[in-house]
Every structure is written in C-alpha cells, then in structure tokens.
C-alpha cells in the first residue's frame, strides 16, 4: 500500500539538534514516523526530540538498527551528510536541504552508482505514506490514505494537488517529492517504476516543471512500461529562457530545451493527460478511478 517507506522504516534524523531538524523530527514523530535516532557530530550522548543522538550516522544505524535518514543540514555540509548516509550504509536517504552546490551533487551522483542506497532529493519536501510514515517536511494533515501515488519536483505544488484530491475523498498511497535541483537522487522514472510495481497504487500524478529532460524520459518510460494510469502537470509554461525560476533545476536553456511545451507534448504522446490547472489534474485522476 506504499512505496519506499512505511511504518517499519526506522529513521535517523541528520542534523536533529538544529532548529529545522528538531522541529521536523518532532513533527515526523507526531505523525507516527518511527524516528529512532539523531546524528550530529559532537552531540553524541544527548537526547533531541526524545530520541538518542549519535556522533555519526553509522553509529546511529548500528545502535538503533536504522535503515533510513532524513537530512536537515546546511547546504555547505549537505553533500558530506549524504555521503555519510550512503557509507553507513542506509537503504534510503532523504535530503531536504535546499541550495546544495551542483558539483557536490555530481560527486554524490557518482557515488550513488556504486552503492545500493536510494537517495531522494535534495531540495525536496520528502516522502510520505499517509497514515504510516513521513520523512521530510510535508504537512501531514492534508494527506489521506488511499490508492493514488504522487511524484513531483515541487513541494507546495504537490500540496495543492493533494489537497484537491483529499477534498474529493481521493486518498494517496505514497507521495514523493523528488526535488527541484538539476541533479537529484531519485528521478521521475525511478518513482514511477516503484508505483507501477506497487499493487495498491491505482493511479499516479506526476507534477513536472521546466528544465532538463526528466519528464521526457518519464513519458518514454510510461509509454513503454506502465499499466497504471498517470495524470500529468507541468509548471513553468510562461517561464522565459535562461532564467532560473526558483528551483536550481527549473530553467529553460537558451537553446530552448527543457520547455514546458516539450514536456507536455511528450506526456501527451505517451497517453498522459496534462491538466492546465491543478483542479484539472484532480479531475483527470478522478476519471481514472
């Protein structure tokens, strides 16, 4: 009834003693997430958000049998924090941090090809399996249990769509924010493949945006591999070329690649209806069920 995380997931919070890390650790625990430890160098032996803190992720993983982490550390140290999660090793690392330098992520990406850990993000709201666990900063109260999977490069846009679905009584299996950076750990294709394999996900919403070719690759994947119906949305139709629209990855190149139109066309060609408004996306999902 979910992908990647559920109520068995044992979570370390990297950066749990920081303001944001501490706040969201508490929120995650309140939501019911199985947060078992924090990891902060030099803070080992303390308690934060009610869980023990260790100096290293590996120590936390060994002592508390953790298999996932959520990373709330400042951008300058986030690349290193991800490397530490991969080294521990954990099965899943979710990097919330916005503003990680792209070249740090290129190195992380190389390392990802050598290990079995799945990375979600960075610059993402995290992942939630409603009623079971949330790893990240998503507002748990707008989600409801159900059978629609969501994957999105944007946080608040996801909330917008989820809110529409929940208000129509349509629950979600898992929602994953893959992040708005140019180089991210989990792509649309990765998430779509997981939803396709999940017998309890009956429809998927995919919210893309301008920049890169991830949506086009997802369209190709959907056309070739997916039985589960997908409803699409693409943000940034009005974005001018060469300007970074908030997300580091949301940029139409000077040569005109990465446009919303290219992505919409690709999705349409793959049989994916692309809504003009978030409400239309919810309409399309409703029509699948």
């Amino acid at each position, binding site marked *: 009834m979910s992908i990647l995380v559920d109520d068995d997931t044992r979570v370390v919070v990297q950066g749990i003693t920081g303001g944001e890390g501490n706040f969201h650790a508490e929120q995650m625990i309140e939501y019911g997430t199985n947060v078992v430890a924090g990891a902060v160098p030099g803070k080992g032996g303390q308690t934060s958000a009610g869980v023990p803190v260790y100096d290293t992720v590996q120590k936390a993983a060994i002592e508390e049998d953790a298999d996932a982490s959520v990373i709330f550390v400042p951008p300058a140290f986030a690349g290193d924090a991800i490397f530490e999660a991969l080294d521990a090793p954990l099965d899943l690392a979710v990097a919330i941090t916005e503003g990680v330098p792209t070249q740090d992520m290129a190195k992380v990406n190389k390392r990802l090809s050598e290990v079995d850990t799945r990375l979600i993000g960075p610059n993402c709201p995290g992942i939630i399996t409603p009623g079971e666990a949330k790893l990240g900063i998503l507002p748990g109260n707008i989600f409801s249990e159900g059978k629609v999977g969501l994957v999105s490069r944007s946080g*608040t846009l996801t909330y917008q769509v989820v809110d529409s679905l929940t208000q129509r009584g349509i629950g979600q299996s898992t929602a994953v924010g893959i992040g708005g950076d140019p180089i991210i750990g989990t792509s649309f294709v990765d998430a779509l493949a997981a939803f396709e394999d999940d017998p309890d996900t009956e429809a998927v919403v995919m919210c893309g945006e301008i920049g890169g070719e991830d949506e086009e690759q997802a369209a190709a994947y959907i056309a070739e591999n997916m039985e589960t119906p997908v409803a699409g949305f693409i943000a940034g139709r009005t974005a001018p070329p060469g300007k*970074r629209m908030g997300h580091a990855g949301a940029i139409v190149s000077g040569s005109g690649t990465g446009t919303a139109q290219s992505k919409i066309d690709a999705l349409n060609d793959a049989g994916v209806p692309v809504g003009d408004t978030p409400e239309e996306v919810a309409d399309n999902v409703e029509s699948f069920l």
Partner: protein
Amino acid sequence: MKLHEYQAKEVFAEAGIPVPESRLASSVEEVVEAVGEIGYPAAIKAQVHVGGRGKAGGIEIVTSEDEAREAAESILGMDLKGYTVDRVLVEAGVDFVDELYVGVTMDRSAGEPVAMVSTEGGVDIEEVAAETPEAIAREHVDPAFGMHPFESRKVVYEAGVDREFAGDVASILRTLFDLYEESDASEIEVNPVMITADDEVVAADAVMNIDEDALFRQPDLADMAEASYEDDLERKAGEYGFDYVRLSGNVGIIGNGAGLVMTTLDLVDYYGGEPANFLDIGGGAKAERVANALDMVFSDENVDSVVFNIFGGITRGDEVAKGINEALEQFDEIPKPVTVRLAGTRAEEGMEILNTDLVTVEKTLESAVQRAVADAEEVNQ
C-alpha cells in the same frame, strides 16, 4: 550567475589561458585612450548579459581613432535587448585563420560534466547543436576523478582539430575544466577559440556562469557577480534573499515554493493576464519577508494588481496574514489591488485575520488568479 566577458577573461588569464590584450572602458574618452594603448585593429565589445551581441550591433571592429570614437558613441548607452550598455571591453583584434568552440557544462541527465569541442566555432553553437550535432564532439567526465589528460586529447582529436594545434587546445580545455570545478561553474564556454595567423591559440570570447548555490565558497566570484547585476529589482531581490525573475506583464505574483509560483504565473496567463514577475518567498516566511515581498512587487511600476498565493506547509497562514496586514496598514492608500489566497497550515485562521479592507480574499488558487487578472484589466481600462 553570469560573469561578464571581461570578468571571465580575468579569471581565464589568471589560470594561464591566453586571451587578447584588453581594457575595460565606460566612456568614449576611456575607449579612445584604450585603443591608443592597444593599437589597431581593436574590438569594442558591449559588456551586457545578452547573447548574440555581435548581430545586435554590440560589437564593432575599429581600425582608427575616429572609428573607435564612433563605435564607442554608438555602443555606450545603447539598449541591447532591454539592457543598457554602460561598459565596453576594448580588445586587441586577432588575426585568425580558424575558429573553434570549446565548452564545459553539466549534463543533467547523466549527472556529470561534459566537455564539448567543435571546429564550427565563431557561430551560434546552439544552431550547430540543433542542425549538425555530429559537428560537436563530447566527452563526459567522471566528477570524482576530474578530467584526465587523455580525455581532453580524445575530444579534441574527435572534433577534428588540426593536429598541429590539438595539444594546445587540449591543454586549454583541461585548464577550463579545472576552472569549471574550482570555481563551481555551471557553464564555461569559449566561442571562439581562435587559431591565429602566428599559430597561437587564443580565447577570443569567454562565457562563465557560476552556480548560485556555491557562491558561499567562491567569495571572489561572488564579488564579481555582485558587480554584474543589471536590474535594480533583481538586485533588491538578491538583498532580500528572494528567488525573483522580472517579466514583462502587469500582474504581480507572490507565492511560496517554486513549482506553485510557476503554476500561479501559468494560471495568470491561462486566465488571460500577463505575469509581471516570479517571486518565491520560500518556506516558513514570517511578517518581515511578507512585507519585503510586497515592497518588491509594489516597486515594479509595470504592476497593476497583485496575487498573493500561499500553500502552508512550514509556512503558517496566520503569520502570513499578519505580515500582509502590517505591511499594508503602513500605506495611506494601497498602491495596487492585492488578492490573497491562503491554504494549508493555519489557512483558516489566516483568512480570518486578513483585513478585508486592504485585500481581497479568495478561497481557491483559480479564483484568486482570476480576480487579480480582472483587477489588472480594470486598471488598464
């Protein structure tokens, strides 16, 4: 963050890449003085962040003081695709026999840098990429190792660079790649690299974009970037710490989260309006940021109405509402009509707090956008 040509060439020269002799000038007299020192022929090149400067009249080759004066008068102060030229680079003319393209950028799909070399230099490389992609040789580089010398040679030979110059070009490419890594560039491009009549290899142009997220560890480049802002509102956004992009419409847009703000822009367009800007106030915004955002949008004289769209996760609707009230209560008269839509965390509390004498409150994104579009139309009637 784009560096100007003259800034990028400073960086190149320091790294040992040959560049033509040059001077920066911001007045006609400085131009005349500079060509006097450099000699003829010389190129007078507008320093603005605009592609295709040459075609647009932003670059002239001069062979006498009269021509230099004339070119300086025509280029300085000219409007180049919306940007006013206030500085030109005066550069020694290069007697070249061949032009190459050399660049390094991030291949997002592969998640690793890619080096590119083409013998079709000196022309619009994106046109080459679109029409004859095989004319551009590419080599992906493993970011853990950096560029191996053999990789620089391989891509240069594959591009078909004349064997006589291949070693020098490969060496420039390797230096560019090292610069790319050391300076956290997102893109470095030299178009053209010129092979001179004296068999020298020279970087005749220089494009260098720096990853904004890495400026914290690139203090020298951050200073250069500072000097390269070209729009007062964008400079102000930088000071406030907002993600901001100025557009040409009249509906001002404020929101939280890049995807949702983009969507708001798209909806303005969808409902027949024209977005004036992209402004993301980010997560967890408090009263001061809200006030700053309103100040930004009100400062844009093109704006006729404003839509304020918040979906609270970390951001709390009640805090945003308070911020909006406080900011607007300081005006005797609200400068432009503001429509607010709050959803998510404490949205209902926020909507109760909002002073409806100052703003229009809408419950859905769609209706809020429609309202702002209507307001803007009304102003223009």
